[in-house]
């Protein structure tokens, strides 16, 4: 299946939005306006954009600690995200979740997740319930190469496969589990081969090529919808920043500047823009305009976050239980 020109422009917008959002967080974090932890998605935009472009509003995703990209791509509103990262009452989680727990069940975001691999069984459950409720919803589940060594990955794939659940397991292989390189943490190169053990299709694509991601994910979603069960989709990509802001020098304690720069050359957004311009789908000028518009949108979000109030002390005691 091929994406329409209109879709291609949408990909682009989504990716630019993710990029600029993350870069803004980078600056705000440095200035102490965003407390806690911030794991940035810069460099991996194509995966979120390509996968989520195949999902409907009512479909589900579970995300990771590096989740801003996924939820933006699934349609989260950045001003509520920003407010949440500021710890404000108007945030998605009323300021009680923060960067790692942004969720909007209404639009199928079952939450970013602070536990590596923690989201996998949840996605499986979402698939299970979709199946039981006889809807054709699917659940996409993002996780990293690191999590693919966690029990939940294997248990989740197994369970989903046994029950032929509509789940797409999206492994964002950015080559490092925090500071440990893939070579050091698993004896395989392609996580996708683990699908064999659970009798489901396994695909590996260039995670910095939004087209490739979009098409591979498209097939997987298709299978899921018609009840053919889960797929393991591995996207090879790379994070430009350190594991989190505060990981000195973009993680050069465990990877080289050369390597980082190598991957920055493969910038997914630049590659897309190149294609779009070559195919004359969009002009350079239009692209510039897009960046500017989104920049504005993000400034708006920051302003919204700034003006928003912090939670009241008593808010702390709310939502422990459903009353």
């Amino acid at each position, binding site marked *: 299946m091929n994406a329409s020109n209109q879709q291609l422009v949408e990909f682009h917008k989504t990716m630019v939005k993710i990029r600029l959002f993350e870069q803004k967080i980078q*600056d705000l*974090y*440095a*200035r*102490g*306006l965003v*407390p*806690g*932890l911030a794991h940035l998605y810069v460099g991996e935009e194509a995966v979120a954009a390509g996968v989520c472009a195949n999902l409907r509003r009512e479909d589900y995703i579970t995300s990771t600690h590096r989740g801003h990209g996924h939820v933006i791509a699934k349609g989260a509103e950045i001003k509520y995200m920003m407010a949440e990262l*500021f710890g404000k009452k108007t945030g998605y989680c009323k300021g009680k979740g923060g960067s790692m727990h942004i969720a909007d069940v209404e639009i199928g975001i079952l939450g970013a997740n602070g536990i590596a691999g923690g989201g996998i069984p949840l996605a499986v459950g979402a698939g299970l319930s979709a199946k039981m409720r006889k809807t054709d919803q699917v659940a996409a589940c993002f996780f990293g190469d690191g999590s693919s060594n966690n029990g939940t990955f294997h248990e989740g794939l197994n369970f989903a496969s046994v029950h032929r659940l509509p789940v797409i397991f999206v492994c964002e292989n950015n080559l490092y589990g925090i500071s440990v390189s893939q070579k050091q943490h698993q004896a395989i190169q392609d996580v996708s081969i683990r699908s064999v053990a659970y009798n489901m299709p396994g695909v590996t694509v260039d995670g910095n090529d939004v087209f490739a991601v979009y098409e591979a994910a498209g097939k997987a979603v298709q299978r899921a919808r018609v009840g053919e069960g889960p797929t393991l989709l591995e996207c090879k990509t790379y994070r430009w920043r350190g594991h*989190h*802001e*505060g*990981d*000195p*020098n973009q993680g050069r*304690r465990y990877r080289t500047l050369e390597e980082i720069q190598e991957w920055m050359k493969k910038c997914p957004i630049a590659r897309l823009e190149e294609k779009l311009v070559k195919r004359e789908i969009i002009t350079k000028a239009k692209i510039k305009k897009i960046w500017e518009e989104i920049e504005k949108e993000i400034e708006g979000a920051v302003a919204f*976050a*700034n003006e928003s109030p*912090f939670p009241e002390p008593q808010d702390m005691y709310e939502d422990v239980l459903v009353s």
Partner: protein
Amino acid sequence: MAIEVVVPILGITVEKGKILRWLKKEGDPVQKGEPLFEVETEKVVTEVESPGTGILKKIFIPENLEVPVLTLVAVITKPGEELPEQYKAVPSPPAIGTVPAAPPPQAAAPSASLAPLKSSRAPQDVLILGAGPGGYVAAIRAAQLGIRVTLVEKGDLGGTCLNWGCIPTKSFLADVKLFRKIKSSEVFVNREALAIDWQKMTARKNRVVETLRHGVAVLLKSQKVNLVRGQGKFIGPHAVEVDGEGRKEIIRAEAMVVATGSRPSSLPQIPFDGKKILASDDIFLLTEPPKELVIIGGGVIGVEFAMIFNSLGTRVTLLEMLPQIISTEEPEVIQGLNRLLEKEGIRIFTQAKVLRALPLNGGVQVILQREGKEEKLSAEKVLMAVGRKPNTEALGLDKAGIQMNGSFIEVNSRLETSIPGIYAIGDVTGKMMLAHAASAQGIVAVENISGKNREIDYQKIPSCIYTFPEVASVGLKEDEARQKGYEVQVGKFPYRNSGKALAIGETEGFVKIIAEKELGQILGVHILGDRATDLIGECVLAMNLEGTIEDWGKVVKGHPTLSEILSEAALDWQGSAIHSPKK
């Protein structure tokens, strides 16, 4: 619109960063994302990227300065743009351990409202200059009060007291006392043969000093006191530059305590030479006791050394300019002591003005003036004990703007100097040049730093002189008390009348208690006699607990003890001493 560059928050545990290197100069063009400067945090060096594109207009924080994260370090402007007004006068960087400087204007609103998250970053800290009995005690007390302490010392822990003063001399005096005891006792046989080995005496002294020094080090370590070796020097009211082993570092602290102590001073016309003209410190470097010693200065130090060397067989002459030696003590006591010293064979010349000292065949000739006449004294060595001068010159106190009182540091009764937050204790204050006074001051100073409000009462600090027999006193002398308008009455009791004194063969001396008539308030106690320096403790306690002299008389003492003498003196005040003949 200028873009501000701050020391970024590099992870949730990082609170401060040291700017190691600027990778760009003022005026350089910078690209968003390119490295701007290197900052060291918790031993990790991080390149900080430019938050924007433009000209690096102004750098506020120089290299090698440590500042809290979020401190504004530079501003980036558009090419050609002027430096906006609000940056023309940017406050000097906040000291480490204080709340970060007001956040950058743009960021002001939100980060101000985030303030609660950051206020936790205000640990109180203190820097103490000098690890003598004042400094190290202050350090320990401060640590106990939860204050972060940096202690700067250029020499040995324990200062003069431990290394060159109280402790070494006491080690000597202990040996000498035993020696004298045996020599003078008739129960030992062939006493003539008995001799004392100066080398061994010095060796034992060194062991004692070593042990104590080690002890202090262990204490400081256990209190997590950050000990920095080197010479400290103020470069501002809250910043001190420490120069140690060629390595300079700048340490900032909210509070400072100056405790650099003092050193022997000499007569201008007779400088120390370390060989013939000795300072008290030099004594400990002698390989053997001199045959003849002239001591210039009849103060505590002079008298104590006179005692030691005289007992070791040195011919000692003591020169004092004033009419009496140790003029700080109760005249009656000093007269007593004077008599005993002379009985010992120590020559004491009072009202003796020393004019010159000339080398004379291997020794020294001291020329002095007495009763108008010039006299010559020859000696193998001269000990100059004419007082001590504070170590205040090298500290750059002017940099901190501290008000002086001559060469001493002016402090109030809270030990605070003219600059709030800077305190001074010990000899540098010139109040009471005693180790225990320094320690007491140290404790008061840091407790004030910790927010308490304490004043020091010199009235109740004892003074001790280690002669044979000892001299100790606390509080007012008799005529001082009268001058202050008290109606005083005196109680006295001689050692001679004490069973214990007799039994241990220490019958010299007496106790004199001065108390106010109406309230029976104990104003002063003066002791000449064996163990006086231990007995005075009881007196200090009585004064501090505000006991009346009648109470004191009622106290029951163990028998036989020297402490009984004190109670008897108290009773004598009421004319009812048991072991004194009826008056």
